[in-house]
């Protein structure tokens, strides 16, 4: 196990992976409970357009993806405030990003191999620049989430009461969507565009099956996320797999085991 940590690329993959596992787990719990599970998927497809645009115009792709994703997040909020249904707003941006990405990919012929790593994640993908961006933006995002944790908890449970008690629900909602947009882009190098949403949703869903308190749900989701990254990256290293696939399959396996365990022991009370 330790030998794989000798390599710089593996160290970077582990550092980035653990950080995004924490981010995705915390955001994921809020998204799942707010019935916004597909937001991550939508934003990921939008950032695909950003990646393609970055590669096409010679801009650092993660940065252009970040810009695309965050702007789309704001756009989705705007459409929602103009009485477009939330899921329709996501679908509109989703297709826009994807179609733009596909057009740019077909206009150029050079970067198809590289694109594969963006779609499914790659163990070699996290460059020195990437890790700096992921650490800086990722830690800032995590801090923002922890700062507003209790307000987000309140509004996730009961938005009307939260609003009535003076919590700026609309602004925090917008913040959550923008933080999701950022998280999706940061996760892309490790889990890939197509698998980001599972990485957001599955740790939270497993934790929701076994936890009774909100605090433990967040904690358990974070632990599951980190464990899946460590397992997935190790498997990817030894068997030469796309990292996103290895991580998400680990998660799906975990989800199935927990579900089966609950099913087989119906009187099992959830632990706190």
């Amino acid at each position: 196990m330790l030998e794989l940590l000798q390599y710089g690329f593996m160290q970077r993959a582990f550092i980035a992976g653990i950080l995004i596992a924490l981010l995705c787990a915390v955001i994921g719990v809020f998204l799942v409970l707010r019935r916004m599970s597909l937001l991550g998927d939508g934003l990921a497809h939008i950032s695909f357009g950003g990646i393609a645009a970055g590669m096409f115009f010679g801009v650092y792709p993660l940065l252009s993806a970040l810009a695309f994703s965050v702007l789309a997040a704001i756009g989705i909020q705007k459409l929602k405030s103009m009485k477009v249904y939330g899921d329709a707003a996501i679908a509109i941006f989703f297709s826009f990003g994807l179609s733009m990405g596909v057009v740019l990919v077909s206009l150029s012929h050079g970067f198809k191999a590289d694109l594969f790593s963006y779609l499914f994640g790659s163990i070699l993908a996290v460059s020195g620049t990437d890790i700096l961006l992921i650490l800086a933006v990722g830690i800032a995002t995590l801090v923002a989430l922890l700062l507003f944790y209790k307000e987000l908890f309140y509004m996730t449970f009961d938005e009307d009461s939260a609003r009535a008690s003076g919590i700026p629900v609309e602004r925090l909602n917008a913040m959550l969507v923008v933080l999701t947009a950022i998280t999706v882009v940061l996760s892309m190098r490790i889990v890939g565009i197509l698998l980001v949403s599972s990485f957001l949703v599955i740790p939270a869903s497993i934790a929701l099956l076994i936890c009774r308190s909100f605090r433990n749900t967040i904690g358990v989701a974070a632990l599951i996320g980190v464990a899946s990254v460590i397992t997935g990256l190790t498997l990817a290293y030894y068997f030469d797999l796309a990292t996103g696939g290895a991580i998400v399959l680990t998660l799906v396996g975990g989800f199935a085991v927990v579900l089966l365990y609950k099913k087989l022991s119906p009187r099992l009370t959830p632990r706190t």
Partner: protein
Amino acid sequence: MAEKIVEFENVSFGYGRQPAVEKATFSIERGDFVGVIGPNGSGKTTIVKLMLNLLKPDEGSIMIFGKGIADFREWRRVGYVPQKATNFDQNFPATVFEVASMGRIPKAGLARRLSSADYAAVERALKTAGILNLRDSRIGDLSGGQQQRVFIARALATEPELLILDEPTVGVDMEAQHNFYALLRRLNKEFGLTLVLVSHDIGLVSKNVNKLACVNIAVTFHDVSKGLSTADLHCAYPAGMAFVPHHHHIPTPSARFIR
């Protein structure tokens, strides 16, 4: 004269062209226990939402704790138990203690952690509501009446001076309702809390309150500490309207209220 906590002056509000509240003028004083009654769709919840600044009046002015409501910032002084509070996601992972501690969140301030003083206040609120023993239970595992108390505890945790409850006993069984009213009377008498209770159940409400606001788009305000007159009742339940409580049997109004 007691301090005025809420003052409505000629307040009107409509949804589109449909009037919901018309020219409401009344005031609530410290220590009052006000029942807001009226049939479904009469504008009871609209009045509550106006009181909480969730809706802005089309006309007229609302003062709360002596301040214009638009400039009022100390919402921590107001506790609120919404209609359908117990209508939350029953699978939501939150313990009784976690839900009650939401009440301290506005007081702590944005981006601040709850302090040990906050947690002590939550504990006191749970004790007052009589559910301290349930603190670590998942809220979805409790009965309707117990969940109701959790939401009262959440409102009490803010240590409010005014507590507004919107149809709090819908879906709660009879015995739990009686205990619930006993709790409200105690909060009013022992803790000096000013209470506003919205209900369509005039029977239980009028037994407990000292003032009654009858709402049927128009609002009439009655001091019922000395009993309730037929005229008072007719304001909210005009002739021809059946007097049917939603969950249980109560005696006819003439038997119960008119002395």
